[in-house]
């Protein structure tokens, strides 16, 4: 068992544990904070895989922007437990049953597909530049240029829509009025 493997197993365990905490801690703020930890672990996993650029983006966009929005809204609303609604919406048993079923099916698929069980190739075997900004950009902006464009349009639309939503009831909330406009 070499270092990478050790790190991998530790990261995997951390990911699952923090994932569980995200999913099942009752308060949203705790979920959000554990989500950051989860994302940082994810980022570390990306570094382990050699995808440095994606690792940075994971922190920059997910942890640095998206989760900030969550914490921002949680703080803005500052809800009490009644308003939060902490009871379960769907019976536990059904979740366990269904996720178990899907898991079993996935496991069957995995076992049935031996090539999935092969070790990942070492980085040197790939082009040495895999995962760097340069090589990624060459793929993303040439081969996948349309998905890039679509992403851009999507962002533009999101900005417009959020602006509209925020201006819908300008007088309803006084304290966070200008704030929520600007989180868009």
């Amino acid at each position: 068992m070499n270092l990478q493997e050790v790190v991998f197993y530790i990261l995997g365990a951390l990911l699952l544990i923090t994932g569980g905490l995200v999913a099942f801690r009752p308060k949203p703020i705790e979920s959000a904070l554990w989500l950051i930890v989860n994302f940082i672990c994810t980022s570390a996993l990306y570094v382990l895989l050699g995808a440095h650029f994606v690792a940075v983006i994971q922190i920059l966009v997910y942890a640095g922007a998206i989760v900030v929005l969550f914490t921002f809204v949680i703080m803005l609303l500052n809800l009490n437990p009644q308003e939060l609604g902490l009871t379960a919406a769907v019976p536990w048993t059904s979740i366990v049953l269904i996720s178990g079923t899907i898991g079993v099916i996935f496991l069957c698929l995995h076992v049935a597909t031996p090539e999935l069980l092969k070790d990942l190739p070492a980085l040197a075997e790939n082009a040495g530049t895999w995962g760097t900004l340069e090589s990624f950009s060459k793929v993303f902006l040439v081969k996948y240029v349309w998905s890039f464009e679509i992403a851009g349009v999507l962002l533009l639309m999101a900005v417009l829509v959020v602006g509209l939503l925020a201006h819908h009831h300008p007088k309803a909330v006084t304290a966070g009025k200008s704030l929520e406009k600007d989180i868009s």
Partner: protein
Amino acid sequence: MFEVLLPWLFLLGKILLFFGIVFGGVAPVMIWVERKVSALIQDRVGPNRVGPFGLLQSLADGIKLVLKEPLEPEGVVKPYYYLAPILAVIPAALSFAIIPFGPATTLGGLFETPQRLQISNLNAGVLFLLAVSSLSVYGVALAGWSSNNKFSVMGALRASAQMISYELAAGLAVVTVILLSGTVDLVSMVEAQSSMWNIVPGFFAFLVFLPAIFAETNRLPFDLAESEAELVVGYHTEYSGIKFGLFFLAEYAIMTSISAVCVLMFFGGWELWPGFSWNDLYAALNLGWTTEGTTNILGTIIPSVWFVTKVCAFLFLFVWVRWTLPRFRYDQLMSIGWKRLLPLAILNITITAALMALV
């Protein structure tokens, strides 16, 4: 044995050097400088009791903060209340991991090949800095929220909104610089500026980046998160002792790292002058040195000092601005961010890219 340990020792040395300089040196000195400069600007004397010119004032303050009773206000959300200062310091400290503070060196012949004076060489480069600095918002946000204080919450909300907004503009300015240099690696970026510093072709990017970093570090004229007149001191109203000290430290640390990045990106890092490198100077003086410092380690140290000088000049700019400009209103801050800086940054990227494609 030494050969095996050398890289590790070198790494350790770099880390210690950094933390020593930044947290032990730069931050206390900066606090002293801040007070002295403010006194100068306001025509006062400033600290002058502890040590020569009051130089040891920061040390005294530090000792006081550490020794103070750790107060815990009523109704705070305990884990987050204690977590927040730590979360504020961690990104500040992490941001130094990728900052090179001098040219690649062999440390007077200790190494076969020149080693970078940089703790870690991530190939994401300057993006890592953006990522880490974007995390610093959590410390502020949690501190404000967990303090059970309306002023603190308001400060935290303002801080998080402000930081997200200005991160966009700063990121886009960085993209322009990346375009100009063709790399995200800070060392390569400095090398790319040997003939012309990025401040000239990237002037508008700098124009966007400067206000953006002021806002990101919560400094005047954008320190709405802790504006005394409105919010007492904002998110750290309820903090005292060493916990407050950590916030204070983080602020100056991140200020330093961002100044360093700014110098690296726009002002040629440790390069002597556009079109006239240190090696040229050494050759002109017939010293036989190189920046790699193989013959004489001074060849490396002098450029590093030059770099630190530039950073200090930048830090001075921070202080100068703080005590000169008045504070913006919050809505002004937001409209500057979204309606001025962001379009300007996008336009700048477009024009720069078009020009680069054409020329």
